[in-house]
């Protein structure tokens, strides 16, 4: 009995091979389109913004005249905000991760916290803005200060920091912990002197990536009411401020072409900071990541 009809198979072979080739190139071109868009986006912004990018641009206050305007206050405000975001997020994020990985028992409460964290990661940033507006700006009377914005941003990136710190801590092999206990160390001594140093590169990499997200995030700041335009610098965390993405947003929404070029120049600075932070993160990962 002949199960396979050779002639039938042969007659279809050509079109099957042809289809195979066709889709290979189709899938490849799908990938290529993404890369192409990236290239267009970068070149477009570079071409438009580069002529405006000079020392004076980095060092000037915002102005109604495009040729005099700069990002000094915005850049300063972003640094001020990150000075609040970085410590708050690191303490809360790493603390939570240590608790969940090292101390928490596997019970309903722990898995509730875990599910809660992954759900928080999916909440739109604009909703965090509403939370910050109600709690920090209005209820705690912090106004649109560096502190209010910094705390809002911290809550926004906290889930990302927690999850990456958890992964880093989980990757530390148990043998190290056991060895430390065997030497007579207590649990906290083991965590502080063995687990955390071993997990540090992973924690830092994840945290830097999360912090770079906070630098580029705009929507929560707009909802909080952070001014789009400010001609003075903050001197404490209770002062008003403006941030780099807010300044870019301000320039983008103006109809004049010069301001849009300024926005492009601002974007170059913003992307430059992000690329720098990402490179540092990758460098830390490659240099210190031990393979156990």
């Amino acid at each position: 009995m002949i199960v396979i009809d050779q002639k039938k198979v042969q007659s279809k072979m050509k079109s099957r091979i042809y289809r195979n080739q066709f889709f290979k190139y189709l899938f490849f071109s799908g990938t290529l389109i993404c890369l192409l868009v990236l290239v267009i986006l970068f070149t477009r912004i570079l071409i438009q913004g580069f002529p405006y990018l000079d020392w004076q641009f980095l060092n000037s206050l915002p102005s109604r005249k495009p040729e005099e305007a700069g990002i000094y206050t915005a850049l300063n405000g972003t640094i001020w905000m990150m000075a609040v975001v970085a410590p708050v997020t690191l303490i809360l994020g790493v603390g939570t991760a240590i608790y969940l990985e090292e101390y928490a028992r596997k019970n309903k409460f722990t898995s509730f916290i875990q599910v809660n964290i992954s759900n928080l990661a999916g909440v739109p940033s604009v909703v965090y803005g509403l939370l910050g507006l109600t709690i920090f700006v209005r209820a705690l009377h912090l106004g649109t200060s560096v502190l209010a914005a910094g705390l809002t941003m911290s809550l926004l990136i906290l889930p990302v920091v927690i999850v990456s710190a958890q992964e880093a801590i989980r990757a530390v092999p148990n043998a190290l912990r056991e060895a430390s206990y065997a030497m007579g160390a207590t649990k906290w001594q083991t965590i502080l002197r063995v687990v955390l140093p071993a997990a540090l590169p992973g924690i830092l990499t994840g945290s830097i990536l999360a912090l770079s997200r906070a630098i580029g995030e705009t929507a929560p700041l707009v909802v909080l009411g952070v001014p789009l335009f400010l001609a003075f610098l903050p001197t404490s965390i209770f002062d008003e401020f403006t941030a780099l993405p807010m300044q870019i947003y301000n320039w983008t929404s103006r109809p004049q072409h010069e301001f849009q070029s300024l926005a492009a120049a601002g974007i170059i600075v913003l992307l430059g900071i992000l690329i720098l932070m990402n490179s540092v993160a990758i460098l830390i990962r490659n240099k210190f990541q031990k393979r156990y």
Partner: protein
Amino acid sequence: MALPEERESHSVRDLIVLKKNNRKKKAIEKLVPKLLLLTAIVSVLTTIGILFTLLIETFTFFQRVSLFEFLTADTWYPFSNPGEYGILPLISGTLRVTVIAILVAVPLGISAAIYLSDYASDRTRRIIKPILEVLAGIPTIVYGFFALTFVTPVLRTFIPSLEIFNALSPGIVMGIMITPTIASLSEDAMSAVPYSIREGALALGATRFEVTMKVVLPAASSGIIASIVLGISRAIGETMIVSIAGGSSPNLGFNVTESIQTMTAYIVQVAQGDAGYGTTIYYSIYAVGFTLFLFTLAMNLFAAWIARRIREEY
């Protein structure tokens, strides 16, 4: 025989010091987990905070505007007197942009995922994957700028009737933005399909494309669907692209060439303006925010449910 000197120095005083230190150590050992639990509770408090602020302010809103009007009226015009608060136009704006974004992101993301998991060599994958992830790391404000100053003008040369603010341009750019999410999660799902299954199909004479379509995609379908649902959730919650390039004219319908307004863009518009604290407009952003929150929460839970429910075991 001379014993080590320390042995003799264990005087009563030293023993007391030792015991005190031990007590201190024990206190620290007890205190630390409690402090760490406090930090863990912050994330629970965040959720409670989000729910409470949204619920309370939304409740105030519904004391002034009926829930029935909010859900069924077909005009959203809060700045008239009295304001009209029917959320359907905002939802319609959000959905138009989201549908376009998904139409762009699903074909691009899944073909990139297939290429990376089944066709690309190890070296190519190691180069292309990080570059794709750069797309996911670009701030949304940059995408917004790109949509308004580049994509819209380019589209207008092909579609002259396209308004300066429209749903099409932010939709396309948003699609590019969520492509890496879909590509990366789908690729994870496809790479998790064991090679023995692929090789079984290849040994039966299937071409690579047939293996992809009839073996890999069905086996990875739960992960792929979950990635698409997560992409939809991100598109619904995305704010800056639509605020910059989408416009601020809430309207109901299917037209993607005219100016629209999404839920997120409305929140931004009001927060930026001077809607005084305590006005109905002020409370309306919480009602809209709550609706948005419910949409994204439903999507996220759905994605988690799919990933858990139809997980293939090998």
